[in-house]
């Protein structure tokens, strides 16, 4: 079905963007709404939880280094339960791809080109990720290898440019309202970093599966770092209340950059970050979902499904939400729990079963 192999580094780069992709744009709003000035602490906590989850995922994945989670869940949990877990996992990735497609368009219509119909953006994105997924994991890995460094470089440049606008006092008081809001706010970042569970599908395609451990930790670590720094900066520049109030804080962070009367208004560059990030994120999610589905149905190849499924996802993306308010409400409140039920729930459950039954493909 998939004959390509990627390196552990490529997998790491894929995962980094798969988490950051839209997270760096949307999450600060969700989190700051809960934790106010402590939003960055929430991100820290979320990332640490993510690192713990990574440990679980890697433990499970390396027990079956040549199989995907869809393949061994049946072996571990029995046909019926295994199939159920499998479809729960697949559906999450496909549904998220659909959200992403919608979100992608929402951002662009809000920020860049309000007159252009949202469908155009969604169709373009879906063609792009279909093309990449059609190319297989190798193509995706290489795309990530090319784009992720540029992506991270741009992020760092934009953060660097707004350093001089920071008012560090905006970050205090630390935990003025106790730890409750911090924990509450840490749920969305945790749900996002938990996207590392896509590794459950990718491990068999990494040419040296043992290295996936280091790669996953690195990925979550880098993401956590960028999340925390970005949030601190957004709060220090814009103020916590403003971050909670703004639709896309990161966009405004870049929009306030003003260097020597020449480098101003670099917010159109934000679009580059957004497009690359969302594109790679969608690639990973679509690939994982689609490959999972074809393995779940025991198809010979996933490629025939690429196009019809992307049609389905685009139309679902339109149907699913009426407005960006709905996306935000769902994204900040319901979705993280849904995501965690899949991303954390399934690996933990399977690992427990594996321990109890003492199973692994590496005897």
């Amino acid at each position: 079905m998939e004959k390509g192999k990627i390196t552990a580094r490529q997998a790491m780069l894929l995962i980094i963007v798969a988490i950051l992709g839209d997270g760096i744009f949307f999450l600060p709003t969700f989190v700051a709404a809960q934790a106010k000035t402590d939003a960055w602490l929430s991100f820290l906590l979320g990332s640490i939880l993510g690192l713990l989850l990574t440990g679980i995922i890697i433990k499970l994945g390396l027990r079956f280094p040549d199989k995907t989670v869809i393949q061994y869940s049946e072996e571990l949990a029995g046909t019926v339960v295994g199939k159920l877990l499998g479809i729960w996992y697949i559906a999450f990735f496909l549904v998220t791809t659909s959200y992403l497609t919608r979100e992608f368009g929402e951002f662009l219509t809000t920020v860049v080109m309000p007159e252009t119909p949202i469908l155009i953006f969604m169709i373009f994105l879906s063609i792009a990720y279909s093309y990449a997924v059609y190319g297989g994991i190798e193509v995706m890995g290489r795309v990530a290898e090319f784009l992720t460094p540029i992506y991270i470089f741009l992020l760092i440049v934009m953060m660097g440019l707004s350093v001089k606008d920071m008012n560090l006092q905006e970050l205090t008081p630390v935990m003025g309202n106790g730890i409750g809001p911090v924990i509450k706010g840490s749920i969305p970042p945790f749900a996002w970093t938990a996207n590392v569970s896509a590794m459950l599908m990718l491990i068999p395609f990494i040419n040296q599966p043992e290295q996936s451990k280091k790669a996953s930790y690195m990925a979550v670590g880098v993401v956590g770092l960028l999340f925390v720094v970005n949030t601190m900066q957004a709060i220090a520049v814009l103020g916590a209340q403003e971050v909670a109030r703004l639709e896309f804080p990161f966009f405004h962070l870049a929009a306030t950059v003003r260097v020597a009367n020449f480098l101003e208004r670099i917010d159109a560059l934000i679009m580059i970050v957004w497009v690359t990030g969302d594109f790679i994120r969608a690639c990973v999610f679509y690939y994982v979902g689609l490959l999972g589905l074809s393995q779940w149905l025991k198809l010979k190849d996933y490629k025939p499904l690429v196009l019809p499924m992307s049609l389905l996802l685009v139309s679902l993306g339109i149907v699913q939400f009426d407005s960006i308010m709905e996306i935000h409400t769902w994204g900040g409140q319901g979705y993280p729990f849904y995501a965690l039920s899949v991303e954390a729930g399934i690996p933990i459950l399977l690992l427990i079963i594996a321990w109890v039954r003492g199973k692994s493909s590496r005897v």
Partner: protein
Amino acid sequence: MFNRIFRKVRDSIKYGTGINVSGGDEHQSQVDSRLDNNLQRLKGIFEGCADVVFREFSLGTEEPVRAALLFVEGLVEMVAINENIMKPLMYEAGHRNPAITNIFKLVKEKALTIGKVNETTNMEEVVEFILSGYAAIFIDGSQQVMLAHVRGGEHRAVEEPSSEVVVRGPREAFTETLHTNISLVRRRLKNPDLKVEMRKVGRRTKTDLAILYIKGIVNEKIIREVKERLNRVDVDGTVASRSLGEIIQDTSWTPFPLITYTERPDKLTAQLLEGRVAIMVDGTPIILTVPVLFMEQLQSSEDYYEGFFPASAIRLLRFMAINIALLLPSLYVAVTTFHQEMLPTPLLISLAGAREGVPFPAFVEALVMEITFEILREAGIRLPRPAGQAVSIVGALVIGDAAVSAGIVSPAMVIIVSLTGIASFTIPGYSFALALRLLRFPIMFLAATLGLFGIMMGLIFLLIHLVSLRSFGMPYMSPIAPATYGDWKDTFVRFPWWAMVTRPRLIGQKDPVRQARGLQPKPPDKDKGGSGNPGSR
């Protein structure tokens, strides 16, 4: 779908099998022992070929043996025919005792003063050799035919390269003659590991082809792949190397060259040393090398004839230049029609002031100017050299200036277009530059409809396309994606030569180390004297 139609068309055309010598009869293709029969047959074969010379004569004086010499005028060295074949055969062979039974052996061993002589009894082979510049000697009563290598005649001397010019570096370029070309390489690589495999391609043209590689460095998988693909080639004829290249490259559905074409022996040598395979086609000075990588298109042989700092800086400059050549008009269109907020205020105001009264949208303006520029460039190439320069320079200046003062285009657009054009000249790979020039238009189209987002999407599609390309099994975008950081030493920058210890990983993986480590210049060691580098591994 197109494939199917094409297949039908192809099958409906019945090829001739080239030279029809035997008429299907097996023993007929043998050379007869009677000279008259042979000559008759050959005259039939070469009917209407006025350039084939039949020279009948006699060996010896006392008991003359009839003989005949056949060659194609123009392909052979006439001096050699006169002095080394005719003279000894007619005079010296005659002074010998004609009673010697094997006159054939006598002639070959004692008379012919030609270095390379083949023998054959196969008529088809005789015909083939005659056509490739050998002289065939038939002797009555002998079934064997001598094929004397007297190839020569008029052809171009080794000259300076015209399409890959360097300021410093060798001035030699390949010529049309295969053997000259091989010798140009051989002179640089005095090593028995340089293998030259000959074969012929083309049912009608019978073009000579040489595959060159260095055994021990080349990846066997690549050489096997090259041979397999060449075996698959079944064409009427191949006149230029490009047409052959299009058949053997991985896919034609890409604007990017998947095979490099070079006319510089020094470049070819360097490529062979990196583990590449060269394919030389007789009759064209352009040599094919495989596999090729994307980043190589930005490297010129000049880089290796300059110091490492300037060479690296120039390479980075070229890197900028391809971005300009590909993106500048699109960015201009996108920024001025979609993202005006990106411009600094004074620039925006002056651009807007300059565009005042221009009737076309920026996209149309850009398109018109770009196409005009391409036309001028094409005209400049086609015209004789002095006229061509005049056309391109005067044309660009006059048309640009006139268009601005007529208010049809804005001055900014003229700057953009000329900058783009000039940037595309800096790219060493000619076919690559063509690809970029071509791709500029769809990206401009995307920019005009969707702004920066369109450009982004265009680039993402381009990237996916590029990373899925392969050239003879090698990922095209390597060493960037998949990344082999060891090879970056000769990608974006050029490291000093002593630092390039290993060959490109994927290509020369068989014998990765190319030179000793620690060759960097050091201050002389006072105790020992000299830098004390071991010269060998």
